[in-house]
């Protein structure tokens, strides 16, 4: 199957593109996709621990199973403002 992966902010710069179509085995999970992207784009490595994933624009877990045509967003931690 194929899914459309969208990369933002630091993830976009690490990959060098805002989106990619990725081929996966049927039944692959979000975690499988993330591992595959990390292998293909080593620059994503430092972001991995904090990366959140959205599937079809909703936050997803790494065990969620992907389906053909899903839109997967790779979401680094969102905008700052930790100092209140």
């Amino acid at each position, binding site marked *: 199957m194929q899914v459309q992966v969208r990369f*933002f902010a*630091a993830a976009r710069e690490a990959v060098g593109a805002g989106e990619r179509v990725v081929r996966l085995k049927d039944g692959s999970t979000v975690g499988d996709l993330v591992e595959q992207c990390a292998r293909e784009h080593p620059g994503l490595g430092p972001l991995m621990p904090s990366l959140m994933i*959205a599937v079809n*624009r909703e936050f997803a877990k790494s065990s969620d199973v992907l389906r053909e045509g899903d839109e997967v967003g790779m979401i*680094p931690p*969102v*905008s*700052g403002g930790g100092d*209140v």
Partner: protein
Amino acid sequence: MFEITARPIAVADVVAAVTRPDCGAVATFVGVVRNHSRGRTVSYLEYEAYAEMAIPKMREIAAESSQKWEIAAVAIVHRVGHLEVGEASVVIAIAAPHRRAALDACAYTIERLKEIVPIWKKEVSPDGSFWVGMGS
């Protein structure tokens, strides 16, 4: 009113979008580009959004606020692109019959926005540029 825009945000327009005759309070929050961050001078910021997800997440926050407080209307407008020091990056306006609910919901909204709305900023300083994450 839930928007992501590349143009300067007019605070008065956001306030007008929620102002209603049955509401005695409109609370606003304006996030402004600061000239320093974590010990570095900030020259300007670049904001980037996953707009197709960010807008539904803004609506979700408004729905959460409406569950928690008696409020009548919520507007959230976030800027993207190149922002200079002093420009507004985000404007929130919340109307309620009474001030306490409007103020509390406004504070809640900006905190939640930073947790679940996929918008990022890159701080550009004379020493280089840095994507800013939640913990910073």
